[in-house]
Every structure is written in C-alpha cells, then in structure tokens.
C-alpha cells in the first residue's frame, strides 16, 4: 500500500461525525450554568480535576516542560516517599500559604503548577532538615506536618499527570525516584520516624504507573536478546510490586 492510498483511507475517517442533536444539546448545556454540572452521563465521571488548573495558556509550552519538571522532582523527591510523621500539628499559616499558592497556581498550566509544588516541598524539606539538625523543641513536628502537606500536593499532581510525560522524561523521573528512595533511607538512618501515609501511597501509585509506562514503551522497541531477558525479569518484579527494583533494572536498558 502506498502512502497515498493510506492517506486516502485516512481521509475516509472524516465521515465520523457527532450526532447533530447531541451537538446542539451540548452547546446549550455548556452555557446553562444551572444544569451543566448534572446533565452529562456518568460513564467518564472521574475525569481528573487537574483540568481546573488549566486556565492560563501558553498551553503547550508549559504542559510539556518535562525536563524541568523531572529535575525539580529530583530535589523534591528527597522529601518523602515513606511519609513523614503522623503527628498532626495545626499550622494555619501553612494552610493559608498552600491555599494562596493553589489559587495563584490555578492560573498556571499543569507543569508549572507541579514545579511550584516541588519548590514548595523542597523548601519544606530544607526547613525540616534544619529543624532536625537544630533539634529545637516544638519545631520538628510543625516542620514535618508542613512537609507532609507539601508532598501531598506533589503526589496528587504527579499521579494526575505522570501519564502525559514522554518516555525520556519518565526515565529522568525514574532516576529521581531512585534518588528519593536513597534519600528516604538516609532519613530513616538519621532516626526520623517514617510511617506509611496516604501521600507515600500516592507516590507509590505514581511509581507503579511509571514502571508500567516504561515497560510498555520498551516493549515497543527493538531489544537485544539480553535486553529481552532483562525485560522478563523487570516484568516479574513489576508483578511482585517491586517497583523500585524494576525501575533500577529499566534504567540499565539504554533505549
């Protein structure tokens, strides 16, 4: 089949058109604020809330700023994976700051918002680290809580957006996740009590999605015999939920 024949076949897909009654109804519903929240079917009712943050648009330039995202993520990732602390400490100041940051970042594309989240979490990590070093009474708990909240933001946005990253960016994120795991070990060794929290579980979910994406991308490439054997091991690790080990193996495959 020639390219020309194929393009002619593709052009036939132009026959796919929506039902005109539905088109008219939908248009009316969009501009009717009283019913627009209720009249859509529930089949895809869990479309991500991240779209609410897509308002300012140099759309595309920001959404795909993956490389900056990955490097910012690396600093952030030292933060948290296991979750830090179960001590709840009310920090109105931080909540206000978070709310303020969210309201401003609501005007930014997704990737910029993630970068802001990383910057915030990184800042909170530094504050926590300092608090631990200084070991001043009453400073560690609030620092841990603020840090935990900042990571929650990262985990949430990362989970919502990881699927949209390209393969190269995913690999960079994988490197950063590995660094994070190493950083977590250091935190544990420093004596900091790290318990499983929702945020750590969210990050774990993001990691599993990352591994799956990378596996699928690698499956579509041409692999050497050795690489194919390694892929089998990687898939076994994935099935065993050893995402960290799977990531380490994936990074050894240079594709």
């Amino acid at each position, binding site marked *: 089949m020639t390219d020309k024949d194929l393009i002619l076949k593709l052009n*036939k897909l132009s026959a796919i058109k929506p039902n005109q009654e539905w088109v008219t109804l939908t248009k009316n519903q969009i501009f009717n604020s009283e019913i627009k929240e209720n009249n859509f079917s529930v089949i895809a009712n869990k479309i991500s809330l991240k779209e609410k943050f897509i308002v300012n648009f*140099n759309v595309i330039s920001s959404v795909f700023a993956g490389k900056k995202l990955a490097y910012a993520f690396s600093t952030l990732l030292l933060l948290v994976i296991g979750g830090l602390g179960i001590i709840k400490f009310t920090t109105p100041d931080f909540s206000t700051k978070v709310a303020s940051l969210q309201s401003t970042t609501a005007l930014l594309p997704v990737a910029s918002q993630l970068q802001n989240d990383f910057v915030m979490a990184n800042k909170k990590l530094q504050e926590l680290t300092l608090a631990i070093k200084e070991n001043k009474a009453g400073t560690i708990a609030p620092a841990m809580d603020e840090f935990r909240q900042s990571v929650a933001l990262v985990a949430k946005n990362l989970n919502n957006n990881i699927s949209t990253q390209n393969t190269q960016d995913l690999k960079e994120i994988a490197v950063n996740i590995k660094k994070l795991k190493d950083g977590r070990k250091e935190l544990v060794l420093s004596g900091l009590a790290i318990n499983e929290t929702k945020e750590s579980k969210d990050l774990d979910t993001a990691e599993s*999605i990352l591994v799956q994406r990378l596996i699928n991308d690698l499956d579509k490439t041409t692999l050497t015999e050795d690489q194919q054997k390694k892929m089998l091991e990687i898939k076994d690790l994935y099935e065993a939920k050893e995402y960290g080990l799977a990531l380490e193996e994936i990074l050894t495959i240079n594709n």
Partner: protein
Amino acid sequence: MLNNKQEQFSRVYDQYIEKIYRFVYLKVSSEEVAQDITSKVFLKGWEAYEKSADNIENKGAFLYQIARNSVIDFYRDRAKNLVVSTDLSLQIADKKDNLHEKAIQNFDIELVKSAIQNLKQDYQDIIIWHYLDGLEVPEIALAMQKPTGTVRVMLHRGLSALKKELGNIREG
C-alpha cells in the same frame, strides 16, 4: 442572550466540536463515551475561557490538550487501580447497534480505525491532527511541545506504523 465571551466560545465550539469528537471517538471507539468525554472537554474549555480567555493563545491546541488528557483519565479511571497504558490496543467494543455505527458501513473505515487504535498515542494524535483535522506540522509541534523536525519524523513513522498495522489486521 449570550454575552461577548459566550459568543466567542460559541464560535470556537462550532469550529472544533466535530474535530474534538472525532479525535476522542477514534480513541475510545464508543459513541456514548465519546459524547460524554467531548462534552466534558468543552465544558472545561468554557470554564477556562470564561476565566481567562486572553491567555488562551491557541484555542484548538488548548481543546485538543484537554481532550487528550481526558481520554487518558478515562482509561485510568476505568481500570481503577490497575495500570493501563494509553499505548495498549483499545479493547472496548461498543456492541450497541447505534446510529453512529450504522453511519459507518465502509469496511475500510473500520479497518483504518482499528489500526489507528493500535498505535502509540503520540502517533495516533499526530495522524489524526494532520490527516483528519488539517493541522500543519508547526501547529502540531506547538501542541505537542516538540521540535518541528521531530514531529515530521514522527509523522513519517506514524504513517509507517499505521501501514504495518493495517497489514497485520488484514493478515489476521
């Protein structure tokens, strides 16, 4: 009576509704799901446009991006906690004998549609945008945040991949 922004977005809606619907439909292969997702795309688009119309430089690219993400979210949510790659072949079968399916009787259309769904998402998007929606390479490059040269290469590879898929389907 529509205000100025509503009138503007109304025109955007008219211009892109068929394209966005077709873009989504080719990825989900179900009229009902495509309608649902497309509705939400334009609702979200309107919400954003209402708040900050001046900041949306390329309305088409903006809507396509929402549509792309919405499809990804749809599959992820359908799988719940299972990981589903958007690059996997779509297995959804719309078994209803609906009006849309009736309208598409041409065997070639079904064949090409199935082949497209077996491609990687980037290839799907590029092929749909360029050959169906008439977007030029620079526009696609902007939408995908990739260099123009990369998009040209991807377009060529996507077409080759599609040709191969069609061959596989015919043989199968």
